[in-house]
């Protein structure tokens, strides 16, 4: 029986950190081993719950950064960007160590997902840590050997803020995948444009409304709001634009 077919209510379970990787000065990827992981779809998230010695608790949502292949079935990755003065993200970026337990509830969410059997090209638009679930979709695309055209527009402050640098290079080498970075503060040498995603960027680099693409937009709430509005203004069918708002954290990139 296929494990993903089991429908059940979820509750909190304990995973163990088996590895951590610095992505940038402020972001870290955590590799978790979760016993009996049921598998997940690219784009899903989970909730993390932290408990202090006196019982005080805090929980937050994090997207799953890895694709599920079935073979490395009980390992998942999360990537967390530290929010200044945040309660949970600094713990995940700076404190938790290999060997530590982490309570999670997931995978959840059946809408902001991409399945290899899905029709039509895919436009991904991420701001900052909003690239996390999009990376899972790109990974899933690669591991399924899919030839569906994928485009990623990734908005970052500066070259040093890019997470998954080597991964994105590798993914971009595929003929079916186009990766475009947009720098909002400082661009690397040879990249003249500095500024947020605007109508020009959308019309130049994104699929056209008539291409029938499904668009996934993810990042801080103001970023998602702006990009979704730009897409609709450019004639994209709102029903084909799926959004994942991460919250009002910090300023939009």
């Amino acid at each position, binding site marked *: 029986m296929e494990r993903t077919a089991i429908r059940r209510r979820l509750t909190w*379970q*304990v995973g163990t950190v088996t590895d951590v990787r610095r992505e940038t000065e402020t972001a870290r990827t955590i590799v978790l081993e979760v016993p009996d992981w049921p598998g997940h779809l690219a784009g899903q998230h989970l909730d993390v719950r*932290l*408990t*202090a010695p006196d019982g*005080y608790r805090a929980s937050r949502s994090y997207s799953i950064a890895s694709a599920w292949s079935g073979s490395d079935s009980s390992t998942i990755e999360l990537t967390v960007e530290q929010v200044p003065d945040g*309660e949970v993200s600094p713990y995940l970026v700076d404190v938790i160590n290999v060997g*530590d*337990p982490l*309570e999670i509830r997931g995978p959840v969410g059946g809408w902001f997902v991409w399945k290899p059997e899905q029709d039509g090209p895919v436009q991904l638009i991420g701001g900052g840590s909003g690239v996390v679930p999009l990376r899972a979709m790109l990974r899933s695309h690669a591991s399924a050997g899919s030839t569906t055209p994928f485009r990623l527009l990734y908005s970052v402050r500066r070259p040093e803020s890019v997470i998954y640098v080597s991964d994105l290079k590798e993914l971009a080498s595929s003929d079916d995948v186009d990766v475009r970075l947009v720098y909002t503060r400082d661009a690397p040498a040879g990249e003249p444009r500095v500024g947020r995603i605007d109508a020009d960027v959308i019309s130049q680099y994104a699929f056209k409304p008539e291409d029938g693409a499904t668009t996934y937009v993810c990042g801080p709430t103001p970023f998602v709001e702006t990009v979704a509005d730009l897409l609709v203004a450019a004639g994209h069918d709102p029903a084909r634009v799926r959004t994942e708002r991460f919250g009002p954290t910090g300023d939009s990139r």
Partner: protein
Amino acid sequence: MGIVSPGFTGRRRSGTELPPGQYLTREFPVLSAGPTPHVLPEHWEFTVTSETGEKYKWDWAALMALPAEEITKDIHCVTRWSKLETTWKGVSLDTLLADVETGADYAMAHSYGGYTTNVPMDDLLDGQSWIAYEYDGEPLDPEHGGPARLLVPHLYFWKSAKWVRGLVLSDTEDLGFWETAGYHEYGDPWKEQRYAGD
């Protein structure tokens, strides 16, 4: 099931001056269960409806014409932050209700945007609550409930209805927005009355 997350403390809590389970903040966190209503003072109106259906109305000018008080109070949010010595300006409910003929025991506060919360009359009178329209010397921001909010600082802060537009007085206790969804009907922070049954 429960584990302790090694090295996790969360926001700092306790301190004897705070109610149990609260942490101290210097910020003024914005909580919202819906979009922020933007009500201009010239469109604002406050209505008290007595248990017999009698209505008493104040517009902005009428509110401004009433004697105002400077208020300095600690506030305690059920989401566990407390903020000490917050300063407000507003009109006491004693003043507003002085000419309202009522023997009602309970009030339901109603807000622009549809929010409601129930408060016993005994907790609204005797210098315990205000319609506040300034915070920290400035007109109250819409995100903090402006142009005017109810201020009942001795109860958890969800009782201090933002964007308040009226009180409906009644002999029976009905429950408001959060009180119908598991929160305590009274909400005394010092007794840690967070949830129904606490």
